């Protein structure tokens, strides 16, 4: 994929700056929604790198978020600032690499079960390692101090989360344009072909685990500083499943899919809860939320495996098509505006196909 023209890069940068600044204008609830979505999206980006781009499914995402959270929480209480977040990333990277080691020998299902086993063992350790995690009563965390300033408001954490999200997105997208990134795609499509091309499959997978683990650890750090509390229940299997659901609903192998999926999975229960409170049927609606969640996963995988982002893209194309058909006089400007998108979309097509069909 060719590098973006400088102008569009500047536009993206400006949009991010505006988004970060806008976080301070939100009320508390708005800020809560923004940081919830942004932090979940960072985790989903990491999982998307691993699953969507490198073809390694993982159910241990919750455990990795937890490792990042407990590392950052303890170091933050010891007075670390930015260092705590980076250390959480490192801890996540190391843990992810260890969990990933079986993947060097195992494939598909067996690796999925290995990550499931890791998830259960680690969440158990969270519960019993009381000196570090404070067990069920939870680890209370001091507010984050960044560059001498204490982050106290929800708005500040929302801005931080949005900033880190943008940074992560840019870094991961850049990574995919390197040789390592391209190797990810080949490994996803077919490991034997990758070997035939002279790609070191084991090393490529290890890169994917390390990078994805680092980003996941960072998301755990942001989570713990934002909530100021870490309890083992927060990092159990449902969190892993939520993250997997995010990339399914959003779109595997598409970066914007992580954000769309995270927004969808986080905001859906919030919206349903609002409605439930209004009509006093919260309990039933909670069950409905779960039902919708399960059903959506099934339907997306059956009918639109590339998720919301592919759906939106198709919708945009359809709208553009309808407009140009209705008004032939304005067809040429519409076509001209669609043109810069054209080649990129076709180039992206092989990248955005889901999963390897290699080993069945």
């Amino acid at each position, binding site marked *: 994929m060719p590098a973006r023209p400088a102008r569009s890069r500047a536009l993206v940068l400006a949009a991010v700056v505006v988004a970060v600044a806008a976080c301070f204008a939100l009320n508390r609830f708005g800020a809560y929604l923004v940081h919830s979505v942004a932090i979940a999206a960072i985790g989903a980006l990491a999982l998307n790198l691993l699953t969507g781009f490198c073809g390694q499914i993982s159910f241990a995402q919750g455990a990795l978020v937890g490792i990042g959270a407990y590392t950052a929480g303890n170091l933050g209480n010891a007075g670390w600032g930015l260092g705590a977040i980076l250390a959480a990333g490192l801890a996540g990277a190391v843990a992810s690499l260890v969990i990933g080691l079986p993947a060097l020998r195992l494939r598909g299902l067996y690796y999925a079960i290995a990550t499931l086993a890791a998830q259960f063992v680690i969440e158990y350790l969270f519960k019993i390692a009381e000196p570090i995690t404070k067990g069920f009563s939870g680890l209370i965390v001091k507010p984050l101090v960044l560059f001498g300033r204490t982050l106290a408001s929800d708005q500040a954490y929302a801005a931080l989360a949005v900033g880190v999200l943008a940074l992560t997105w840019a870094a991961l997208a850049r990574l995919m344009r390197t040789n390592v990134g391209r190797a990810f795609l080949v490994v996803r499509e077919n490991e034997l072909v990758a070997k035939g091309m002279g790609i070191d499959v084991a090393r490529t997978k290890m890169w994917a685990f390390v990078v994805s683990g680092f980003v996941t650890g960072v998301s755990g750090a942001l989570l713990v500083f934002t909530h100021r509390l870490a309890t083992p229940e927060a990092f159990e299997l449902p969190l892993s499943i939520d993250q997997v659901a995010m990339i399914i609903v959003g779109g595997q192998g598409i970066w914007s899919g992580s954000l769309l999926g995270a927004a969808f999975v986080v905001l859906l229960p919030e919206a349903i809860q609002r409605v439930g409170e209004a009509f006093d049927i919260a309990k039933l609606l909670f069950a409905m939320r779960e039902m919708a969640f*399960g*059903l959506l996963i099934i339907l997306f995988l059956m009918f639109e495996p590339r998720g919301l982002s592919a759906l939106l893209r198709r919708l945009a194309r359809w709208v553009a098509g309808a407009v140009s058909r209705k008004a032939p006089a304005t067809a040429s400007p519409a076509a001209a505006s669609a043109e810069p998108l054209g080649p990129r979309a076709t180039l992206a097509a092989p990248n955005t196909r889901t999963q390897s069909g290699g080993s069945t």
Partner: protein
Amino acid sequence: MFVLQIATAGLATGSVYALIAMGIVLIYKCSGVVNFAQGAYAMIGAYAAYGLGSLGLSPLPAAVGAVVIVAGAGALTELLVLRRMLKAPVVAVMMVTLGILIFFRAVCLAVWGADPIAFRQIFPPGSVQIAGVFITYNYVAAAALSIVLSLGFLAFYRFTPMGLMQRCAADNSRAALAVGIHVSNQVSVAWAVSSGLAALGGVLLATLNGLSLGLSSIGLVAFPVIVLGGLTSLMGSLVAGLLLGVLEAFTDGLLTPALESWFRAHTSIYSVGALQHVVPYLLVGLMLLVRPQGIFGRRGTERV
């Protein structure tokens, strides 16, 4: 004596694990689908039995009715969802079954609520005394029933024409098609049989431990069983199920108290929590590193 008591309790739960794991193996052999939703069928089975019971059926017919209903639900799932995903990648199919699990859990949550429910006992109360050990009828019946059923199922698979067709479809679906076996229907049958088995396992577990949504997690407990036994071996899941059941019981009864007293003496850790639920996964981690194909499994050749 205490040891013997633990062992029988372990055998009882282990045999139920085996029942559920065999269902997963059956589906995997037949269609290559890894069914994370197996626990959901166990759960619906137990809830359906409870529901039929509250409609006025006596416990035994209610249990049989539940097994039939859930077998139908399993076949329906295959028809509606998985048959349409034949060409989808393995991982996508795996996640679809996860979606099915979430969906069914939510259905039970909506209908019966999140609180645990007292399950009507199928077997008479009381206990037998064997060599000085008291074992309640519950455990005896659960163990006996699921072991007999597992063996019966193995026999069905081995000796009947239907079982032969199942094995054909599992072994080589193209060759099966060539000799005139309707492979898709065989897959539906496999789904019906395995969800029926799971439902029965669910009912038995509910009589042992009570009825709650937590029953659905049995499907995840079954995965260590499958990995240990070998993904393609029905016999393997029977043996591994019993083994893990006993192991869990011993961890709970002997290892946990010993560890806790050591931890309390030497560290500030007071409790080791539900260690018995983690031991199978520790074992699986080791197994996957050492012998991924399991105890009874065969190493498959992978084709491009």
